[in-house]
């Protein structure tokens, strides 16, 4: 088990490295370097950057040096928690991102949990009552979930909420609590707003997991050991949960790792449509304004968050299901 976790951790480390390189590439891609755009930005607002200041900035970021030196310097700053300055906001990047990153985590984790909570019972039901109206309904909703891109789903729900109930279903907080400091009331408010975005983000993943669970369980249910368990007089529910469901969980679990990156990706666009205060809208604004330190940092942090989340879910699953341990090591 340790060897397995060790290997996953090593792969995660590599992934983080790959993400950092790609984020750095995003920062480097637009023409001109950070300091020239910084000076231009400052000049447009009337303040002047002295030659000395510019020189200091250039040295700090290693501009003019080979690209890998610049990358290492950037990594060095990041490890110390200095993400650079956001040009558009004229504040440190860490400050601009602040709470939004945590709200992104909250929304993504909520969607992930919802995916598991919904997919498991629906998948089991669909398999046990194969070809029942419930099964057909689940399959139908599942196909819709897979075919409708989540930002379109968000758009349609927003429209329906507006037209039918005259209610705005977007946002994560009520207007009066938008900028309030954290309190019990604000947490409760957040929990009230969470289901809609979580459902939109989780629907496609849920649909996929239901299909996987249903197929696996159908395979297991036809095996002789189920008949044996039944003939020994176990109750139907016990027969089901004790053996076939546990076995069907294995392939189900190994695909869950890919759900989180998908949800995080989706949260960016859905946040824009629903007006959620996550890093999504910030990233889009930063990209359009070519505020590259902010954009690069957001991409890096989102990647990091996803990798950590996937690693945690991997470890939890190994711990729950001993069969993964045996198979993979």
């Amino acid at each position, binding site marked *: 088990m340790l060897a397995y976790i060790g290997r996953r951790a090593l*792969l*995660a480390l*590599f*992934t983080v490295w*790959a*993400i950092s390189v*790609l*984020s750095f590439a*995003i920062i480097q*891609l*637009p*023409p001109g370097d950070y300091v020239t755009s910084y000076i231009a930005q400052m000049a447009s607002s009337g303040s002047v950057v002295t030659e000395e200041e510019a020189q200091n900035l250039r040295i700090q970021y290693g501009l003019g040096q080979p690209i890998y030196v610049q990358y290492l310097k950037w990594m060095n700053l990041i490890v110390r928690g200095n993400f650079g300055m956001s040009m558009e906001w004229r504040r440190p990047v860490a400050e601009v991102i602040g709470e939004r990153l945590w709200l992104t985590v909250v929304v993504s984790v909520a969607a992930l949990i919802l995916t598991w909570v919904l997919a498991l019972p629906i998948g089991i039901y669909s398999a046990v009552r194969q070809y029942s109206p419930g099964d057909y309904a689940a399959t139908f909703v599942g*196909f819709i979930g*897979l*075919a*409708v*891109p989540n*930002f*379109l789903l968000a*758009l*349609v729900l*927003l*429209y329906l909420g*507006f*037209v039918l109930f005259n209610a*705005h279903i*977007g946002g994560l907080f009520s207007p009066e609590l938008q900028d309030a400091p954290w309190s019990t009331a604000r947490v409760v408010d957040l929990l009230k707003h969470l289901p809609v975005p979580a459902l939109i983000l989780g629907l496609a993943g849920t649909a996929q997991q239901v299909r996987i669970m249903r197929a696996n369980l159908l395979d297991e249910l036809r095996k002789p050991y189920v008949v044996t368990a039944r003939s020994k007089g176990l109750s139907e529910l016990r027969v089901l949960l004790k053996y076939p469901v546990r076995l069907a969980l294995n392939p189900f679990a190994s695909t869950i*790792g*890919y759900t989180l*990156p*998908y949800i*995080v*990706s*989706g949260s*960016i*666009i859905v946040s*824009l*449509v629903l007006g959620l205060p996550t890093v999504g809208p910030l*990233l*889009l604004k930063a*990209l*359009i304004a*070519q505020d590259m330190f902010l*954009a*690069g940092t*957001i*991409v890096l942090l*989102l*990647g990091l968050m*996803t*990798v950590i989340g*996937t690693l945690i879910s991997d470890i939890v699953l190994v711990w729950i299901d001993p069969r993964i341990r045996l198979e993979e090591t």
Partner: protein
Amino acid sequence: MATTPDAVLEPAGAPPVPDARSVTDARIFVASQWQLMWWRFRRHKVAVASAVVVLGFYLVVVGADFLAYADPDASEAQRSLMPPQRVYLLDGWRFAPYVHGVKGVRDPNTFKRVYRPDPSQKVPLRFFAQGFEYRFLGLIPATRHLIGVDGGDAEKRIFLLGTDVQGRDLWSRLMYGTRISLTIGLIGVSLSLVLGVVLGGLSGFYGGVIDTLIQRTIEILRSIPTIPLWMGLAAAMPRDWTILQVYFAITLIISLLGWTDLARVVRGRFLAMREEDFVVSARLVGCTRTRTIFVHMVPSFMSHIIAATTLALPAMIISETALSFLGLGLRPPAISWGVLLQQAQNVQTVAISPWLMLPAVPVIVAVMAFNFLGDGLRDAADPYGR
């Protein structure tokens, strides 16, 4: 696979062949692989229906200019945000489709422009009517369109799906949008296919270090949230690029996303086939490696590749739509489904003019059709199994 017909001759556990069926069975024994696949595919009704839908979409791609009846870029402030028109098919008892003329008036209370159909005015629809000039298939100059109205007088126009803020006809724009959105998917998927077949093939054929390296790369790529990454790459495109340059850049970006699944399929087939008799014999008679791969192995799993490619298309279409929707992909004056949906970003706008959401319909239908078609093809791809 084509060289191992035992699987057909002796289906595991099949009952003895009854007389009445022996004729069809004889047909099965001599059928080619592609014929068997076609028979199996035909049984999957939803997939066949989806194939028709997909074919229809590509007919729109080819004949977009013929199906559109208005210049997609012609804007007119007087016709901003017109709702879809009702088409009357019968005039009395005769089949003669017509629409009512429309009068634009200002609402005296809100000062908003509203449109009222004018029942006294009948605007007949003509088939194969004269319209704006275009080049059919990019070559043949033509002016005929599927439908249209006589004259093209300002008051007598058709707006089947209404107009957008700038007064451009949504139906015609949708036709052109379909052309761009679907070709982007197709070109993107071809690039992915090249990447997937080369890398998956290397991985499966050589194994060892190369295999591990490529497999880890795929795993890493799949555990990264891709949309922020593609957004970053797309935003780095210089602003002064032409539509064509942006088009190819976007295609390249989204194709970098789709190759991993294809590579997995190809690798799996290579692994399964490496030890097959016909591959071993090809090697033994002295075929070069390239010849073994391209003459003997690739044709036998071509069907799997086609199925996997079809299944990769929806992701491409959604990526392009999402990027353009955000304003990072194709930009106006280019027209794609995503560009059209950009106008529906704002709830207030959509609440007043819900028809602006209509471009979502072809997106959803296309994604579903490609998914079902891909499923059917995947099942048919291996006609000797089960």
